């Protein structure tokens, strides 16, 4: 493997820097700014079977070192993705991970099947959606989670990534359930539930009252999730949560992530992810790592994978 190359759940990446779902759309806004093929991978905005219109009212609130969002997973749906976005996006040759959302197991399965046939690089299940049948969030109920993952597993041969919710006591029971049900890798973490009150109206800012917290504020929480999973289970992890710089990225690799994703930082600086790619070699070298592989898990004092070459 080259200096920056990595592998997550069977997915080969030329560098370990992805962009997080929901912070990069389907790439169109960024394509005029830099060559999308410089990214290790693109995790597109969550795709649902039918178009979802998202939440009414205010969708954003700012917090100290963070951002609350209540977008409500607005997306144009599977058909639009397959007809318009995917044919355009595949031209860059960058591995595209399709993040998917659903109200029921059947919806997830239908999307998984369709995108597998289309030839995307991998699937990422956003399990922070409530199951319309019982109102329970898939990602906070081990049985529901295992059922969902197993069902999707049956219809796809693609690398299957499960993105866990941090709104739990800890990652391990959910990580185990997902891996046993067939997940190849885990994304850690999705946003943390929070809320804000408007300084003028004195009412909740968000139309949906609560929203998902992202940004540097949640970095220590994300790091804990990555560390606990990577040091306990034999599963590849994609780390995300407040990553903005090569220094942040390296920290997540050292905690045990095999790749990282830049999310909210793109809102402050659309070039944040490619800057991370550019600056990572110097950051690795600065701490004596011959390669990304050598850095993965290094904070545990062991080198999980072979040294500089593999």
């Amino acid at each position, binding site marked *: 493997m080259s200096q920056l190359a990595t592998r997550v759940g069977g997915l080969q990446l030329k560098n370990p820097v992805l962009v997080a779902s929901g912070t*990069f759309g389907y790439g169109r*806004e960024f394509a005029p700014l830099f060559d999308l093929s410089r990214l290790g991978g693109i995790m597109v905005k969550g795709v649902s079977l039918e178009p*979802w219109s998202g939440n009414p009212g205010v*969708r*954003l609130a700012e917090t100290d*070192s963070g951002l609350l969002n209540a977008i409500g997973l*607005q997306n*144009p749906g599977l058909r639009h993705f397959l007809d318009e976005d995917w044919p355009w996006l595949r031209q860059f040759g960058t591995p595209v991970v399709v993040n998917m959302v659903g109200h029921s197991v059947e919806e997830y399965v239908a999307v998984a099947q369709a995108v597998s046939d289309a030839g995307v690089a991998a699937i990422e299940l956003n399990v922070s959606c409530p199951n319309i049948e019982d109102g329970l969030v898939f990602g906070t109920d081990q049985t529901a989670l295992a059922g969902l993952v197993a069902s999707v597993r049956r219809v796809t041969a693609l690398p299957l990534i499960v993105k866990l919710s941090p709104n739990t006591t800890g990652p391990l029971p959910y990580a185990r359930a997902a891996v046993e049900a067939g997940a190849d890798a885990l994304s850690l973490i999705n946003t943390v539930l929070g809320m804000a009150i408007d300084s003028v109206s004195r009412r909740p800012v968000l139309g949906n009252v609560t929203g998902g917290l992202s940004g540097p504020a949640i970095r220590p929480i994300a790091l804990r999730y990555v560390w606990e999973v990577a040091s306990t289970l034999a599963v590849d992890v994609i780390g995300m949560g407040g990553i903005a710089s090569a220094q942040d990225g390296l920290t997540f690799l050292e905690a045990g992530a095999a790749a990282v994703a830049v999310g909210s930082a793109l809102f402050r600086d659309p070039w944040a992810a490619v800057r991370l790619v550019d600056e990572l070699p110097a950051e690795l070298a600065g701490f004596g790592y011959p390669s990304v592989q050598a850095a993965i898990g290094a904070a545990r004092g062991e080198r999980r994978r072979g040294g500089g070459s593999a």
Partner: protein
Amino acid sequence: MSLGRWSVPVVGRTAHGPGVVELEVEAPALAASIRPGQFVMLFPETPGAPYLGRPMSYFRRSEETMSVLFRVVGAGTRHLAALVRGDRLSALGPLGQPFPDPEPGEVCLVGGGVGVPPLYDWARTLREQGHGVTVLLGARSADQLLGEAAFSPIAAQLLVATDDGSRGHHGPVTSLLPASTATVYACGPSAMLKAVQEWARGRAAPAYLTLEARMACGFGACLGCTVAAANPDPAKGDYGRYVRVCTDGPTFAAGAVLL
């Protein structure tokens, strides 16, 4: 020119009445490329400045500089207002769609409160293009009124309205809207925009509304700044019912959005 992000120095700061500040930055590349109707995201480089940028329309520009004119309402504008000559801020821009071209003939610009500044350079441009420009300015009271001096040399007609009658017409600025075939551009508080939208219904000549929304990115990536579309067009990327104020707007045809 395409989107850029720069750290730029403040070269001027002027108070325009209570809690209203004009901040001028030296930003030649931005000033050369930004078009009337577009905006920037501003990041004050001061301690404790907010995590996200703040969207601001530009007010005026020269070859070397660009200015914004804003009212202090919360933490972000407080940080911006505290900047002095020599301080730096970061700017991401130009963002958003320029004002769409008017029909030939008369144009009417309607500005309320801090909706006035985005219209100034547009008035100047329209005038240069030979349009007759009527300008209607509204504010809560005389001391909150912005732009009268700036617009008066440009406007063929300049009318003022205040909610309390302390200057000009006593009542909403929208009561001054002309019964002409002028193309209308309106920018201001949402009550004003709703009134213009109502007024424009069924009218033959076009009317445009420039909206505001909370923004995280300003360039279309986060879907945080949406407004409900009257007729969403999925083929054009109108995801579901909502369109983005930042990239699909901030200026929309009056009939295109549900306020």
